[in-house]
């Protein structure tokens, strides 16, 4: 084990290694900040370039990109209310109000710190878990998946801001959207209206970009504001980032919880970072003594979101490295990169290529460090974006959104979908429908259905499988509790007010 670590260190700390990690990181930062492009799209662009390179060095490039993009995404989330990647969505909720108050630097500082430390945290857990990773992953069979997802759905809908009924409606619509198209499990095609485009279902990125980015551009345009920041921007030595750094330690429990949630959710294949950052955010609200301050620029919200979304990479590495099963889309591309370089992913990876695994771990850690450090250095410059006239910001958002959405899979109609959801998102925000349940419903809906039907197939059609296994039963009880508890709480509260 020790020589694997040492060998990995030598690769990383070589001139070439450091160069490639940093290059990848910068690339990830830039692409992450551009809405729609980030994450997986950036990685794919690298695949052809790295063929023929020394595999170790190529891997550093990849983890460099992976380490840079979550923080990059938070930059646009905080400054423009447009999450650069789906995993940064919750950062907007409090990061952007902070920017409007002139505290963008502080928010960026929080993000940089929480991102980097969150990643470290998850990587440490990853190393600790590896010996028992197989058992953990094997313990999650379809009934467990279904119950976990049900629980997640219930929690997020419950704690969504505003009217709970609207939260349910939002979530319901999200789930329905995920069901459009060909269903892997039942073999049926739903709501395709005869088109091949809808046969494949609606992708996350167009919906996401529409609902968050395009609707924001619409909002800015309609509100006729001059600049994003409404008060004079604080420009201290580091642009206020140091304040942000301190905030993370002030909310250290939120940070630890967020990192833990991110790591755990990252381990579950298919669910990933989007759910992680929302779940961490809503958990922070639930456990806070002043829940009404969230969404108004409470730094704790940014801590919660940003610690979770970087932590997901450490978690996603677990099934990737242990079984060769990608824990996230980026991991799937990483696996493809392995094969391209003649490495065989799968159970043998830990035995035969432990040094490579360590290169991934150390590279990811280093890349996060570089991204956050760069973030601190650039804060003064970045913060000025909030003072730029809105007439440049709006079209930039629209152009980047459309280009980014198209870049995802070269499908022109995705752009139209994004435009339509821009309108829908605008309507939802204007009339009090929370956006989070829509996205969560979409992400989890199809997986929930799949797990449900799979569970039945595994059990030869018997429903008892949900009730005879320990984990599903526990989760079911928790779900029911979380559904009914708030009713009683709310009644007690209003009675108390009167």
């Amino acid at each position, binding site marked *: 084990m020790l020589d694997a670590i040492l060998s990995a260190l030598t690769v990383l700390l070589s001139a070439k290694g450091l160069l490639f990690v940093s290059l990848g990181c910068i690339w990830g930062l830039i692409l992450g900040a551009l809405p729609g492009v980030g994450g997986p799209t950036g990685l*794919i662009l690298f*695949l*052809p370039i790295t*063929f*023929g390179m020394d595999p170790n060095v190529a891997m550093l490039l990849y983890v460099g990109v992976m380490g840079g993009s979550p923080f990059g995404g938070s930059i646009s989330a905080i400054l423009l209310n447009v999450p650069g990647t789906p995993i940064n969505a919750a950062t907007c909720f409090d990061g952007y109000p902070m920017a409007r108050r002139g505290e963008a630097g502080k928010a960026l500082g929080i993000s940089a710190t929480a991102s980097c430390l969150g990643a470290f945290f998850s990587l440490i857990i990853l190393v600790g878990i590896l010996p028992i990773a197989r058992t953990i*992953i*094997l313990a*999650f*069979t*379809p009934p467990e998946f279904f119950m976990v997802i049900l629980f997640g759905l219930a929690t997020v809908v419950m704690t969504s801001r505003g009217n709970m009924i609207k939260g349910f409606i939002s979530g319901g619509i999200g789930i329905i959207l995920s069901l459009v198209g*060909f269903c*892997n*499990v*039942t*073999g049926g095609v739903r709501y395709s209206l005869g088109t*091949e485009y809808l*046969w*494949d279902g609606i992708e996350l990125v167009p919906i996401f970009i529409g609902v968050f980015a395009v609707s924001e551009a619409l909002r800015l345009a309609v509100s006729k504001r001059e600049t994003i920041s409404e008060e004079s921007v604080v420009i201290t030595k580091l642009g206020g980032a140091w304040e942000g750094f301190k905030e993370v330690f002030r909310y250290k429990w939120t940070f630890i919880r967020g990192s833990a949630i991110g790591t755990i959710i990252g381990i579950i*294949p*298919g669910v990933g970072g989007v759910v992680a950052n929302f779940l961490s955010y809503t958990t922070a609200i639930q456990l806070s003594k002043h829940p009404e301050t969230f969404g108004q620029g409470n730094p704790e919200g940014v801590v919660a979101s940003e610690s979770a979304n970087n932590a997901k990479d450490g978690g996603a590495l677990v*099934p990737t490295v242990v*079984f*060769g*099963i*990608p824990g996230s889309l980026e991991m*799937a*591309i*990483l*696996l*493809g*990169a392995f*094969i*391209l*370089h*003649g*490495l*065989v992913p*799968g*159970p*043998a990876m830990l035995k035969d290529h432990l040094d490579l695994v360590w290169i991934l771990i150390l590279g990811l850690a280093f890349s996060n460090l570089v991204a956050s450090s760069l973030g601190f250095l650039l804060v003064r410059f970045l913060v000025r974006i909030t003072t730029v006239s809105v007439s440049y910001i709006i079209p930039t958002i629209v152009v980047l959104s459309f280009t980014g959405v198209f870049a995802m*899979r*070269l499908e022109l109609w995705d752009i139209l979908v994004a435009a339509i959801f821009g309108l829908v998102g605008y309507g939802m925000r204007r009339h009090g429908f929370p956006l989070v349940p829509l996205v969560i419903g979409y992400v989890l809906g199809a997986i929930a259905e*799949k797990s449900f*039907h*799979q569970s039945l*197939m*595994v059990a*030869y059609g018997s429903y008892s499988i949900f009730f005879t296994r320990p984990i599903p039963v526990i989760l079911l009880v928790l779900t029911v509790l979380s559904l009914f508890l708030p009713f009683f709480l709310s009644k007690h509260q209003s009675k108390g007010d009167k």
Partner: protein
Amino acid sequence: MKKFKVLNLIVCLLVLLGLNEMNPIPAQAEDYPNKPIVWVVPYGPGGGFDVIARAIAPVMQEYLPRKANIIIKNIDGAGGRRGVTWVYKAKPDGYTFGYTNIPGQLVYGLVNKVDYDFSKVEWIGNVSSEPVAIYASTASGIKTFEDMMKTPKLKFGSGGKGSGEDINARFADAILDLKASVVTGYAGSHEVILGLIRGDAHLIAITISSGYQYVSSGDLKPILVMGGKKRDPVLPDTPVGIEKGYKDLAAGMLYRAVFAPPGTPGERTNILSTALSKAMQDPRITKWSKDSDRQVGPVMTNKELKEAIDEIIVGYSKYKELFR
């Protein structure tokens, strides 16, 4: 003032039109290829088809006149049909070619309406072909072919209706009369195998190389090789369908075939064919294939490929109702 505005706009338009003009029509055949050629992979990046293409392309382009570039383009969707249709409808000028999964896209076309017709395409070659095999998870306790035939209430795992494992599983189930059920919906063959190890199902029918690494790790056991007429050298101890009396199973192969749109001129497809077969035999690719456990080859002539595909059509047509 008004004239100035209009003029400005026109100038702008012309400048950008100029920039947009990037498709000069090739003059003579000897000029081919004089710009990058696109290899369309009808699946997402990182998958089985994708990585083989990405490994071969850089080597293949060295064997092209003027060392023209080959660019991989992923057009994912509709189980591979979107990419295949794209290539089928592309301009037949030799600058676009693509992959297809036989029997996958072929079988789907037997019973459903599709926008492509494989009898009309220009075949370029076969990148990889190998037999499909049935693996059982060690957790299931099934160790031999006889064990499998004796076990009641068998379950296959498969990656979703219409996927390779699904077609293979139903095909095998029908011929062997296993009366098995199929647990489907997994996102890919790796997830199916994970499901098998967990105990969701007992069997999976995939290409030999896809499952082979799990044999060495002790998670899977090869039970029966479906395709081919004799035992496979990679699995010498595993019986092949035909020796157990199930000759219909011999069609259980996977071909990753490469084709160009109908009407592509013969000289151009020949250039591509030659470059492809040379690349496949290049020592760098042989080494890569060994290192990464990916099957490349054998090199087939177009005639051999056509015959093999016809055999597959015949073999699967008998059971085509299974795949509706």
